[in-house]
């Protein structure tokens, strides 16, 4: 399959791994920002191919992982209204709220549906004029253009029974929050390729300069990730801190201007709470005043007085790259994908779920495997 096979080619990957070995003279800690990258790394066992000193820590770029509990409680409360069809992307359904996930609500009779695109939700609203269709919009800059487009279309076509529960977040403020933490271990970033496909990468230049940290815009296939590591390590070894683009086949410096325009037309920047991390100023999107009629939060007011996390879950430390999932005492025992304590154990892009399912191992020891299978 073109654009996939060449980036999963065994000999090309091996050559790139050798190139990394050649440039590495000491230990470095790199963070891949996006959960999709984490998924590839763990699923293909990429860490096996890296030199001992290179540590990859996993970033906050899992959209469902950072959606606050309060927002899930709100979505569940809205879904429980009899007139509502609540739609979201698949992963979101299993994330635990304070007492229920959306999938639990569905099992108890709420009309909760999986869609592949917000425009499918809009279509559902058109074909169910007597129901209220609410789309739970989560994610980063990657999903924002399609969500903006759905609201814009709803306005244009005057579809009154469509609204959106918005919990959008932005990547650069989260990277800054990680870098400004006093116990930050991250020395370089592999930035999320698809976020940059939309937004370009100019906004990373000031971050790279301020914190003197290499940022390499990186794709999602094994060869992409190894090349990203090679570029970041080369910068670290030579003392440079620049923004470079490994994912040039998809990302242009200026990004996708049309998509940015639609986001800016429909959404405005707001402060946003991140699950496990806390509130970050100017780190999210909400609907502009002109589109407030489509805001599910004001259409269906819900009193969420007491949203609670499990106190055992260390998702925040995992999302900031300060702990590996298996360093959590609950990992694989009290917290599994079937009964998750935190969101990173739910989504396929969540670091904990990736470690649980693919339990990285080397031939010489089964320690991680035994953790990953302890609950079987």
């Amino acid at each position: 399959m073109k654009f996939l096979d060449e980036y999963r080619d065994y000999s090309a990957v091996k050559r790139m791994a050798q190139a990394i070995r050649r440039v590495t003279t000491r230990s470095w800690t790199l963070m891949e920002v996006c959960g999709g990258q984490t998924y590839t790394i763990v699923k293909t066992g990429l860490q096996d191919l890296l030199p001992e000193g290179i540590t990859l820590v996993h970033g906050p770029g899992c959209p469902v992982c950072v959606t606050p509990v309060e927002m899930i409680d709100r979505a569940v409360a809205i879904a429980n209204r009899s007139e509502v069809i609540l739609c979201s992307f698949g992963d979101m359904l299993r994330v635990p709220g304070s007492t229920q996930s959306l999938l639990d609500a569905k099992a108890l009779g709420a009309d909760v549906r999986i869609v592949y695109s917000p425009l499918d939700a809009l279509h559902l609203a058109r074909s169910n004029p007597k129901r209220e269709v609410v789309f739970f919009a989560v994610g980063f800059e990657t999903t924002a253009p399609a969500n903006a487009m759905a609201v814009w279309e709803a306005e244009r076509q005057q579809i009154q029974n469509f609204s959106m529960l918005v919990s959008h977040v932005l990547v650069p403020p989260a990277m800054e929050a990680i870098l400004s933490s006093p116990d930050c271990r991250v020395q370089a970033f592999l930035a999320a390729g698809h976020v940059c496909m939309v937004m370009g990468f100019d906004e990373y230049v000031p971050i790279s300069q301020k914190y003197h940290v290499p940022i390499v815009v990186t794709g999602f296939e094994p060869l992409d990730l190894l090349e990203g590591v090679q570029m970041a390590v080369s910068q670290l070894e030579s003392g440079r801190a620049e923004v470079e683009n490994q994912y040039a086949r998809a990302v242009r410096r200026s990004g996708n201007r049309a998509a940015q325009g639609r986001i800016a037309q429909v959404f405005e920047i707001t402060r946003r709470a991140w699950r496990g991390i806390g509130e970050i100023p100017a780190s999210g999107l909400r609907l502009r005043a002109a589109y407030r009629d489509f805001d599910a939060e004001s259409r269906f007011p819900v009193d969420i007085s007491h949203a609670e996390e499990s106190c055992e879950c260390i998702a925040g430390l995992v999302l900031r790259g300060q702990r590996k999932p298996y360093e959590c005492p609950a990992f694989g025992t009290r917290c599994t994908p079937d009964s998750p304590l935190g969101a990173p154990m739910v989504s396929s892009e969540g670091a904990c779920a990736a470690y649980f399912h693919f339990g990285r191992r080397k031939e010489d020891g089964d320690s991680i495997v035994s953790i990953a299978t302890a609950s079987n």
Partner: protein
Amino acid sequence: MAILSCPLPRPATDRILLAHGGGGRLTNHLIESVFLSAFSNFALESRHDGAVFSANGGGLAMTTDTYVVQPLVFPGGTIGDLAVNGTVNDLAMCGARPLALSAGFVLEEGLSMEMLRTIVASMAKAARVAKVPIVTGDTKVVDKGKGDGLFVNTAGIGAVIAPKSIGPESVCPGDAVLVSGDLGLHGIAILSVRNGLEFEGEVKSDTAPLWPAVEALLDAGIKVHCLRDLTRGGLSSALNEIASLARLRITVEEARIPVSGVVRGACELLGLDPLYVANEGRFVAFVPESDADHALEILRSHSISAGAVRAGMVHENSCGIVTLQSRVGGHRVLDMLSGEQLPRIC
């Protein structure tokens, strides 16, 4: 314990979820916690596709399966084809030649007679192909809204031909793991019509009777240790069940596992893993390494298993896991499906 003061999310076990029917971890939990504990007996506890027992001096296999697929007709087959082939295949996985099937129908008020005739005709045809008669049946009609058009249950009885017990308990370290063909066709065919997705080149369900290929292996004297058809939960769930019952480690090589271009493309697009996608005409066979080449030759001579490959092998290890060598040379655990396989966000 202090942690009990926290409002932990309610474990998804006090109510039936769709994932309980997904063939993965929750299905296993349901079987173990509800059915096995209630019905406990030797045949059931072997956790095979069918039960094997002796009667009148001969070995018999018995199995049952219920079909609830939507839509009722899909590219490559109907719910009726699945109902016949699925039960024939469960018997075949016990090393048993199918002798007779039953068919039970739950019909929803309002179902078109034409649809019923189409499905019954496809069952008759599938039974002819599999050379097994449908000898008894039952029909119930439920109120409109209480069924999804039509549900079918089939049960089957077969004569065990295999000279030795076929099942996870017979798997040995050193066994070769053979996969009978490319994976994921059925699951993607269903998804393509259910979600209105169109792919270049139609994807057709692989539904087919597997007994002729199994019979050929047994007739040739291949020492078949274990067979499992790869239905719900796909290859990885089947391997995990076997590894955990046999308390051995199974290793597979990703690059050897055949997946067609169109299934790969669909899986990439939908964020699914073909190793977890359902099949209805594929199986995995565990045979001694010394028999592996001969077994592959036999499988490849049958159209249903023409794409058979050697995908991995069995190793000593008491913790019962499956590991996979990825296409790029890394290693990881190949886990059982957890929950439903849900589309990813980006």
